[in-house]
């Protein structure tokens, strides 16, 4: 550790320009941000803290996984895309941004997906959480993507944009919707159990992102099948950089907590105390 990193880290704060903002499915927006070097070092599963620069309320920045770096093959690193769902005032404010507006972006942050090229990824994504899995697919070399299985579920059939995107990137995608209007009629977990013989190979590793209850069930399922499993945990965050201790995730055994922004957001599922 050297002290110069204080200055190195400063490079992570950028005023980014909104390049594009578009509602890809009801209530969910694709946001493209441009800033020098913004995605240069972004690894799949990492996140950014976004905030409108001049406003006092919302007070805190909001964490968002990155989705894509943009045009495949582009060398840039100066562009990053986020997929977000409007759930409260921060995301509502974000949805009112227009191309040309500026946003403060801090990142990339946290510890993302740890992908071992010897493994065959089985991705399980619920709702907009699947965005973080898209980044993983994008980072897998195109020729290897056809081995990737991706299960994406949502409440409504029209909320499966991420699944379509992973399919476009070359993964083998199965969709599930609770209204049955797209893919399997049911939850992504039901789909997972139903298709497991198809999905599990010798080198399968599970990568899951979505609501906590879903992650817990995926983790239990993976454990019972003897599969390694990584999960991306969502918690409220204030700083995003490990200093506020607001993003505590209970760690199994120890009685202690890890920081979702620093030791996470991606954890090995057995690290988590799920109760």
């Amino acid at each position, binding site marked *: 550790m050297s*002290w110069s990193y*204080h200055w190195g*880290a400063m490079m992570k*704060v950028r005023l980014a320009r909104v390049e594009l903002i578009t509602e890809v499915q009801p209530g969910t927006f694709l946001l493209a941000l441009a800033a020098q070097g913004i995605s240069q070092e972004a690894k799949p599963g990492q996140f950014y803290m976004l905030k409108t620069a001049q406003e006092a309320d919302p007070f*805190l920045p909001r964490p968002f996984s990155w989705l894509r770096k943009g045009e495949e093959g582009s060398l840039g690193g100066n562009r990053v895309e986020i997929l977000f769902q409007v759930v409260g005032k921060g995301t509502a404010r974000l949805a009112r941004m227009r191309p040309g507006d500026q946003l403060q972006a801090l990142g990339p942050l946290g510890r993302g997906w740890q992908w071992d090229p010897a493994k065959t990824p089985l991705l399980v994504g619920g709702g907009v959480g699947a965005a973080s899995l898209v980044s993983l697919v994008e980072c897998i070399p195109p020729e290897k993507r056809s081995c990737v299985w991706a299960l994406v579920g949502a409440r409504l059939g029209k909320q499966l944009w991420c699944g379509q995107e992973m399919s476009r990137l070359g993964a083998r995608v199965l969709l599930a919707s609770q209204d049955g209007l797209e893919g399997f009629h049911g939850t992504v977990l039901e789909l997972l159990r139903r298709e497991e013989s198809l999905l599990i190979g010798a080198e399968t590793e599970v990568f899951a992102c979505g609501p906590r209850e879903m992650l817990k069930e995926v983790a239990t399922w993976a454990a019972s099948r003897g599969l390694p499993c990584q999960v991306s945990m969502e918690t*409220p*965050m204030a*700083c995003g950089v*490990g200093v506020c201790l607001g993003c505590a995730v209970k760690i199994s055994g120890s009685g202690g907590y890890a920081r979702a922004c620093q030791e996470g957001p991606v954890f090995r599922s057995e690290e988590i105390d799920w109760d």
Partner: protein
Amino acid sequence: MEEARPDLGCRLKRLTLPNPVLAASGTAGYGTEELPGRAALSLGALVTKGISLEPRPGNPPPRIVETPCGMLNAIGLQNIGLEAFLGEHLPLLRESGIRIIVNVFGETEEEYARLASRLETQHGLLGLELNVSCPNVKKGGRAFGRDPDVLHLLVKRVRAETSMPLWVKLAPDGVEPLEAAQASWEAGCDGLTVANTYLGMAVDVEQRRPRISIGTGGLSGPAIRPLTLYRVWKVAAKAPVPVIACGGVACAKDALEYLIAGAGAVQVGSGIFGNPGLYMEVLEGIRSYMIKHRMSSLEQLVGSLEGMPRVSF
């Protein structure tokens, strides 16, 4: 040359800092974390996360929730404990040159005393800040801060253990700040940090449950600034020791309000979360203001407020 660079040097009784901009406890870690844009070296000083004798796991999540122009937190003083701080972080801090004030917290007078005497013997620390005002723990902390007599005894006890600059961080509620301040300065403290967070709560109306695991949390952020500014002014008007303001600073103007109202220095707390460049922004903003208003030293700024009524005890 009318526009000579003003001297931001900050004299807080026995302690002299290069400038009056400090990082508040619990919002800048132990000083060794990767702090984006925080320029810890440029700070007047960095106050560490609260440290206790033994490690503390802290409260279960959720620990934070945003509120209008602010946030509630109930971290529960999670920390690695004194020995791990001394072993793992202090060597790095010494090497870094960051000016460090250690914030300490105990459940008993004895614990505070032991923290103070152990830290007394360490090199490379500028001072101690006693947290007697954390609203988020069951024992200790605020219990000391709420009763001026108990506080007086505590500060006296700690004073006997250490010759380091000693600040007492007061609670803004549950006690009249001026009484707690007086109890502290009469016990020999060197400075008063005004103030910690305000006890508050938030409800999840869908679940009909509190949004903070332990029910209540401490409010920080710009929302509280008018309240803490009042307390800073009131305490500074009477106190024979410097007041270090802390509450809701989100831009240079906010820090100027505190300095003008009588604070000798200003801590930047949760405002850094939404604006990683805030330390520098505040520092440069104070400098520009002094240039514009032709002030050559910080003393000209501190307490320059006019037109307020008299403070009575």
